[in-house]
């Protein structure tokens, strides 16, 4: 039977199904996910301490019972492998290898991103972190290890490093710089993270890896400086890339993300939302891949599909938690002047201005004041009028 079919059952995919029901959509909805677990909150994976066993029940966004009540047909452990837009069919494969074919009326692509991998494949001491199973594997390995190297000094790398430090591990971070953090959160946040890293017990090496080898008990990195960094496990956080192979051969356009109109349409009867989607008007330089954007796009598409008035998609909101402090950024935090409005020791909220207008906010360890400032300066409203 053909149905509205959502491929990808993480934040965006589930938020769409949920919002469609909220707005009164009464047709059948099929939600297909490559992971076994019912939809869960991915960002909670790296916020939860890696020292404790992570209980999937604590981070799920729904339950079997609720999915049934909402009449959402959820199929987990099913990975899309191909798309035939002419016959409106998605080809897929289950975890056990059997092939299935789904016919759709409308298709929503929400397959998101995966970890970028090293060019060679390695053995059981080398890890990536993107989904629940990854965290489970890292926790089990970390429980047996006292030394860990994190490759990558972006947000994910520092989240993992700070988390493993809390778990009592001896942690080394190897990365190029904090430039990717500065691009999203602004330089003030990056500068402070650099200081806090320096003050912490984490060893930081801003260098490149010239060679890497995994033995029975260790992973050895040789850096360009010649230094040997050796640890029992290595966690790679070297970026992400779209899960888009299954779309090859289709006429959909991939350019950093899956290109779609400002209403999320990528082709006739095909829509894209979440981390894989790049809607017209998104700002790739600023970063469109975040949880808030995924939920906002899902709501906006649900409003379109049910004939409701659409809410505006706001500029990016990013947040993370490192060394036990929330770091947050909203709007444009990269260029322009800065003015600190709250400050208490190493915690602060800064306004980012262009000429005299506040166009963004960043904050370190002051979530409450950040939220207040975000409301006070009404950056959303300004952005909206800019777009008109």
């Amino acid at each position, binding site marked *: 039977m053909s149905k509205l079919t959502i491929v990808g059952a993480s934040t965006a995919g589930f938020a769409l199904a*949920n919002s469609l029901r*909220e707005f009164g959509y009464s047709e059948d909805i099929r939600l297909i996910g490559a992971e076994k677990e019912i939809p869960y*909150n991915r960002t*909670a994976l790296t916020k939860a301490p890696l020292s404790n066993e992570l209980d999937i029940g*604590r981070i799920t966004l*729904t339950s079997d019972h609720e999915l049934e009540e909402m009449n959402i047909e959820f199929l987990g452990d099913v990975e899309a492998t191909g798309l035939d837009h002419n016959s409106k069919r998605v080809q897929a494969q289950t975890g056990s290898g059997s092939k299935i074919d789904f016919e759709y009326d409308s298709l929503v692509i929400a397959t998101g991103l995966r970890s970028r991998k090293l060019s060679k494949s390695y053995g059981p001491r080398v890890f990536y972190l993107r989904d629940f199973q990854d965290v489970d594997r890292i926790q089990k390995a970390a429980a047996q290890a006292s030394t860990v190297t994190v490759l990558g000094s972006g947000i994910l790398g520092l989240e993992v490093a700070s988390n493993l430090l809390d778990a009592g591990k001896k942690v080394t971070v190897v990365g190029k710089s904090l430039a990717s953090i500065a691009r999203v959160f602004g330089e003030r946040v990056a500068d402070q993270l650099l200081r806090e890293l320096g003050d912490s017990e984490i060893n930081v090496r801003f260098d490149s890896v010239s060679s890497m080898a995994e033995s029975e008990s260790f992973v050895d990195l040789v850096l360009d400086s010649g230094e040997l960094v050796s640890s029992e496990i290595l966690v790679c956080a070297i970026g992400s890339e779209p899960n888009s192979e299954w779309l090859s051969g289709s006429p959909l356009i991939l350019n950093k993300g899956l290109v779609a109109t400002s209403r999320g349409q990528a082709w006739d009867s095909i829509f894209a939302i979440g981390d894989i989607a790049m809607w017209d008007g998104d700002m790739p330089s600023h970063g469109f891949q975040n949880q*808030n954007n995924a939920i906002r796009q899902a*709501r906006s598409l649900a409003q379109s599909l049910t004939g409701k008035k659409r809410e505006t998609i706001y500029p990016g909101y990013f947040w993370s938690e490192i060394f036990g402090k929330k770091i947050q950024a909203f709007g444009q935090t990269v260029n322009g002047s800065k003015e600190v409005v709250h400050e208490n020791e190493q915690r602060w909220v800064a306004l980012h201005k262009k000429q005299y207008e506040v166009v963004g906010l960043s904050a370190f360890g002051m979530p409450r004041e950040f*939220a207040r400032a975000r*409301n006070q300066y009404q950056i959303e409203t300004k952005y909206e009028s800019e777009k008109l």
Partner: protein
Amino acid sequence: MRGSKMKLAVDRKSCIGAGQCVSVAENTFDQDDEGIVVLLDEHPSEENQEAAKLAISLCPARAISESL
């Protein structure tokens, strides 16, 4: 949503402090210093109910729920 019968509950254990609720419904939600949700008003008045519903829908952890 007739009348003012809305009843809210928050789950502080699953809250991850993204602050979405406070940014859309500051009359109903607040955060503590760690960013974890604080429910200011279990029964929001009619004028605050729409914002509260948006907060429920935007919460990335689904830590806010509505009961009858």
